[in-house]
């Protein structure tokens, strides 16, 4: 019985329910009786555990409720009409066995074919290479961020679209032609944004999956053609050891980011002669950004990095830009006016000044599907 009264007193003491004189008396008791002191400490800890338990339990409950509520309202989905990706997984689970048999038959054939392929073309190595485009899922959040940075009246993003990929890109012609990586454009349409946060609608003119390059044209009355581009685009190869820098948009808050490094090999991954190896720290979102040397010449388009190695990135050689522009001109006579910049006006300037000029020509490219 006494223990019970003591426990009650401890609880009242810990709960702050004692009046001043009671409290003083109890504290005195605590001080003089180590056993009681020990009990208070222990019980206080226990009550703390209980409180945490209680708040966790009610949070778990709230989360379950929220889940059920949102499911009912259709704000989230489970099964049924989920996106195509979900369906694929479900189908896969359903037909796993059939697929396995089919795949093993197919595998043998594939082995033969891929053996042959090795002789004829550079193999694409999906696992060891990472493309540096980024997948954008949450269009809303991004728009909020943009809204806070710029004073634009209205977003250029068409209603009811879903952003699926993004990266960087840069002007190759003063009239608004932009080069980026093919893998940056996974969707059917695109918008581009300059480093001040201004958005422009753009058309996808040409995609070359093999070279992993694509050309966009800004098609927006708000876009003011610039008088001249600061950089030129190099036609020949560059030497090892040349200092390089790149500008791009790897961050989610749309700030342009500079990366620096050097030219490390004349060929890309597994001897791929379409690209260089560069030592630059690159992140998802850097894809499609220009790689420039100290002379203000674009020497490549940053595209992939090696998954297991730090700082090893690959850039599509700049002469491929000439090639795809030529291809595009042949295919579409209306674009014969594209004129690639032949002379760098920032040559010999300090890096800071170079970047100040180049950054206005580097855009954040976002691709969407309807």
């Amino acid at each position, binding site marked *: 019985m006494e223990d019970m009264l003591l426990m009650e007193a401890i609880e009242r003491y810990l709960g702050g329910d004692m009046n001043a004189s009671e409290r003083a008396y109890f504290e005195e008791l605590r001080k003089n009786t180590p056993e009681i002191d020990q009990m208070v400490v222990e019980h206080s800890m226990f009550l703390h555990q209980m409180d945490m338990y209680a708040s966790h339990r009610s949070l778990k409950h709230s989360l379950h409720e929220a889940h059920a509520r949102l499911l009912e309202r259709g704000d989230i989905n489970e099964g049924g009409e989920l996106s195509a990706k*979900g369906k694929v997984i479900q189908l896969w689970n359903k037909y796993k066995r059939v697929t396995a048999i089919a795949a093993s038959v197919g595998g043998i054939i594939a082995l033969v074919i891929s053996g042959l392929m090795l002789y004829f073309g550079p193999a694409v190595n999906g696992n060891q290479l990472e493309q540096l485009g980024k997948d954008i899922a949450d269009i809303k959040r991004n728009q909020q961020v943009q809204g806070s940075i710029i004073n634009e009246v209205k977003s250029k993003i068409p209603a009811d679209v879903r952003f699926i990929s993004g990266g960087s890109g840069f002007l190759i012609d003063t009239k608004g032609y932009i080069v980026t990586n093919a893998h940056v454009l996974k969707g059917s349409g695109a918008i581009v944004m300059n480093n001040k946060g201004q958005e422009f609608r753009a058309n996808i003119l040409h995609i070359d999956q093999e070279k992993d390059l694509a050309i966009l044209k800004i098609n927006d009355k708000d876009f003011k053609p610039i008088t001249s581009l600061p950089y030129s685009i190099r036609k020949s190869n560059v030497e090892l050891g040349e200092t390089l820098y790149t500008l791009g948009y790897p961050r989610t808050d749309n700030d342009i980011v500079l990366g620096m490094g050097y030219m490390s090999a004349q060929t890309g991954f597994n001897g791929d002669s379409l690209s260089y190896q560069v030592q630059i720290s690159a992140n998802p979102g850097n894809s499609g950004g220009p790689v420039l040397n100290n002379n203000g010449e674009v020497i490549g388009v940053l595209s992939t990095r090696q998954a297991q190695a730090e700082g090893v990135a690959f850039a599509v050689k700049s002469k491929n830009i000439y090639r795809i522009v030529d291809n595009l001109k042949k295919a579409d006579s209306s674009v014969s006016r594209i004129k690639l910049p032949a002379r760098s006006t920032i040559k010999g300037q300090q890096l800071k000044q170079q970047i100040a000029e180049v950054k206005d020509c580097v855009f954040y490219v976002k691709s969407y599907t309807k």
Partner: protein
Amino acid sequence: MKADTNEQALLKGLAGNDSRAIDMLYKDNFSIIQTFILNNNGSYDDARDIFQEAMIALYEKAQNESFVLTCQIRTYLYSVCRRLWLKRLQQMGRFSRQVDNLDETVPVEEDLEMHEKRNADFDMMDRALNSLGEPCKSLLEGYYLKKMGMQELAAEFGYTNADNAKNQKYKCLMRLKKLFFTQYNIGE
């Protein structure tokens, strides 16, 4: 990057178990996580579990008054879910290389260690409470979790007066504490 005031308000709401804030957070972030889990060998149930676990981890952080999130909530939740899911995949022995995609993440290892410790505490208390049996369990839940008064409890459980209920509560509490601390001290 700084979390904007909107996100801070959401976190505050979450810390206070506010259903509107929870709904918002849920609505804005769940689908991304679901897609990620589904694309990486998971089921709808896995997605729900992992996401809710991450929300609890965020809640624990948000409990701290001085806490300021240094990245977007979305990035944080994604990072936690990714970590949790990788761990679970490894435990189940179906680790797939595919998980290696390139979305932005922030380091969350320390937070998760803390979270695991809290989870362990939670499970201990849960086990201790559940092994008490009735009416002890409900009585203690009524008093300590629902913060009901002794009078009220006596009426609900049919004790003739509050003192009897108090007596019973004391006995139950002693049993619970014993159960809890035995586990707790083994766990230490």
